[in-house]
């Protein structure tokens, strides 16, 4: 397997893991308060919709010529990846609050306890819809990444496998921990995913247009290093700037 194939699997695994952690918090919060039957049916239904999307859209994209596909997928991944990277840099430098799974879990439980008790089709409708929407919305980003990575690199199966393994690992960890996975370094993972999405997007979009990368696939590693070093410098610069604005100890 080539370096870029390993990076595709890694990107799909990390993106899926971080979104699965957030989905797990929602499902746990609802399931503990409202009961597991409707919550798990809602989560399962959303997972089935996501699997159908990958199975239908992935192979359909393979009929598009690879250069056109790489321009479109590359441009979309680039715009999408820059969002992840931008937010991760702002969080790492203190300009944006870190995502707190414990707080999200407490909020989810509070809302689940306060919601009404509407029954539809033999289901607790609140538990079903909240878990369905939570898993679907968190999963859509993963589907987008899996289809994008998989189709442009012609490795849809590998990308889907990487994402599926991450979901299994996160569910297993959640069962063992019996609570939200608040110790997972979410921002560091999002930083890594943003870096991979942006780098692959840049590489494929330019290649699709007709650019010849020096060193071919090896230059992908160079692009990742360039974006990684630049992001690191941005974090340092922003931290320094923030330190001048907010003196140490003034935040508490």
């Amino acid at each position: 397997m080539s370096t870029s194939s390993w990076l595709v699997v890694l990107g799909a695994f990390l993106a899926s893991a971080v979104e699965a952690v957030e989905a797990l918090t929602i499902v746990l919060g609802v399931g503990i308060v409202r009961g597991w039957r409707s919550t798990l049916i809602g989560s399962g239904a959303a997972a089935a919709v996501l699997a159908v999307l990958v199975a239908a859209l992935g192979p359909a994209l393979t009929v598009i010529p690879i250069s056109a596909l790489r321009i479109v997928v590359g441009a979309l991944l680039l715009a999408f990846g820059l969002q992840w990277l931008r937010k991760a840099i702002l969080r790492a430098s203190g300009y944006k609050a870190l995502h707190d799974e414990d707080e999200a879990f407490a909020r989810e439980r509070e809302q689940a306890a306060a919601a009404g008790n509407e029954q539809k089709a033999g289901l607790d409708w609140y538990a079903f819809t909240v878990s369905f929407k939570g898993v679907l919305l968190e999963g859509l980003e993963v589907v987008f990444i899996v289809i994008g990575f998989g189709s442009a690199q012609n490795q849809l199966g590998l990308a889907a496998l990487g994402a599926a393994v991450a979901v299994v690992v996160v569910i297993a960890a959640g069962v063992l921990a019996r609570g939200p996975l608040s110790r997972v370094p979410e921002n560091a993972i999002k930083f890594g995913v943003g870096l991979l999405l942006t780098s692959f997007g840049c590489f494929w979009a330019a290649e699709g247009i007709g650019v010849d990368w020096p060193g071919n696939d090896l230059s992908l590693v160079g692009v990742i290093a360039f974006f990684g070093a630049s992001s690191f410098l941005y974090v340092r610069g922003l931290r320094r700037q923030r330190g001048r604005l907010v003196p140490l100890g003034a935040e508490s």
Partner: protein
Amino acid sequence: MKYVKSFGLFWWNFIVGDDWQVAAGVAVALLLTWGLVAAGANPWWLLPVAVVLLLGWSLYRASREAAS
């Protein structure tokens, strides 16, 4: 009509997100790269440099907004 608008808005937020200027900048950089390739050049460096500059510009504006 409401659903079409919601659908469009969802995808706009999904792809473009908080800073449309970054997405617009990426589109301009891709067009420039395409133009140079069509003219016979091999501007492999253009897109990575444009991405880093766009990211820096976006972060600069976001940090100023957060500080004010």
